[in-house]
């Protein structure tokens, strides 16, 4: 993973309820410091001079309480603990509620090369947001070669060798009203241990695709903003591969196959491709089938259940016929001595 610096924190493009609203108010030379742990510290104890178990490299979050104490220290002209705090390895200081720290604080932060940032959010709200943002940044991640599309609300990652037709299949899906998340390089993050979120590896490059014979096209401009999405959970992996005559493909689909990505098992399908096979329709159907499965309905299993039920009822029916045949045979044997009139009556039934 690339280094994540304070500057990257300022550059995070988060919107609405995720926005951090940060700006730098001092210690600019500290902007290149790396943030190595996704943790926060409220430096109250440090300000009163208690440094036992002080976690290094943390972001120091100053709320109203810490701010008031800073003012008190300023009035008493006692900056010892503050100096000590900045001597420890800290990644940056953040003030909430648009609080502006005293000049002495900014001087020390400048000297220690630690950036001081400010936000207009409340402390708890900001703490919640930054923890969320950092856990995304520090989530395990992997860049995969493939196309991520949202089909009927299901995030489908199409993978396969180059030239097998991933982009073409995705293009037709987009044309049918589904959405492109990322083409070619899909960055996948594992959030909260079991959810995979996929997005384009390079947001600045936007939603472009390369189609053989057409070249590079801009999906947003051609199909409109309705045809794109910034990120989407990966819920199904579809691997396209050239039809191999000697390979056995799944013909029933009753068992769930999965593919492991970053330790998470995602439903997985292998779809053989050959000319004349309409891959986008197959992917659409796979997505809808996946939705059904999420609702607890497994087409293949239900089908098999009804086949089993049918066979069972056939067996039960056959039982009657068998009994009847036995009866007939017995009657016939008897009929050898007592005449065949009885047997013929049963047969007429």
């Amino acid at each position, binding site marked *: 993973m690339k280094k994540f610096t304070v500057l990257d924190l300022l550059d995070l493009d988060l919107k609405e309820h995720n926005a951090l609203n940060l700006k730098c108010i001092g210690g600019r030379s500290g902007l290149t410091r790396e943030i190595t742990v996704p943790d926060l510290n409220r430096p109250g104890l440090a300000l009163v001079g208690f440094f036992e178990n002080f976690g290094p490299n943390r972001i120091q979050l100053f709320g109203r309480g810490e701010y008031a104490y800073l003012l008190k220290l300023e009035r008493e002209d006692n900056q010892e603990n503050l100096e000590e705090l900045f001597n420890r390895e800290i990644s940056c200081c953040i003030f909430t509620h648009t609080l502006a720290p005293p000049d002495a604080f900014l001087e020390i932060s400048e000297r220690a090369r630690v950036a001081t940032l400010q936000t207009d959010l409340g402390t708890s709200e900001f703490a919640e947001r930054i923890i969320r943002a950092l856990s995304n940044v520090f989530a395990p991640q992997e*860049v995969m070669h493939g196309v991520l599309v949202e089909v009927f609300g299901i995030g489908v990652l199409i993978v396969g060798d180059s030239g097998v037709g991933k982009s073409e299949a995705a293009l037709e899906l987009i044309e049918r009203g589904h959405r492109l998340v990322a083409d070619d390089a899909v960055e996948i993050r594992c959030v909260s241990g079991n959810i995979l979120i996929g997005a384009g590896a390079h947001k600045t490059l936007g939603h472009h695709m*390369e189609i053989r014979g057409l070249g590079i096209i801009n999906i947003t401009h051609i199909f409109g903003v309705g045809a794109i999405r910034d990120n989407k959970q990966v819920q199904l992996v579809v691997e396209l591969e050239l039809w191999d005559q000697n390979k056995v493909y799944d013909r029933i689909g009753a068992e769930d196959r999965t593919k492991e990505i970053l330790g998470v098992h995602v439903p997985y399908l292998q779809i053989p491709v050959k000319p004349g096979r309409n891959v986008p329709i197959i992917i659409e159907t796979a997505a809808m089938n996946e939705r059904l499965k999420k609702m607890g309905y497994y087409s293949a299993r239900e089908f098999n259940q009804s086949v089993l039920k049918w066979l069972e009822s056939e067996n039960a029916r056959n039982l009657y016929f068998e009994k009847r045949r036995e009866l007939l045979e017995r009657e016939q044997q008897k009929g050898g001595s007592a005449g065949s009139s009885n047997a013929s009556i049963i047969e007429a039934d």
Partner: protein
Amino acid sequence: MLQKELTIRNRAGIHARPAALIVQTATKFACKINFQKDNETVNAKSIMGIITLGAGHNTKLTVTADGEDEQEAVDALERLFESRFEEE
């Protein structure tokens, strides 16, 4: 498997045209070819992948080829990089 470090010599770096040349060269070979920059790996047969590496002048890329014709593939790519993608 074969690995080699290649340096981008042309001033403009890998923009659309050099990327197309790289892909054209790579697709001639059956082996799997990847480019690596820092800790990002992309498929050499995908033009968008190569462009999104954002490889500028003097960037070092590691090319990895795996397959029967790996030697020929790496040689061909090396020649292409040395020719500065027929620019300048």
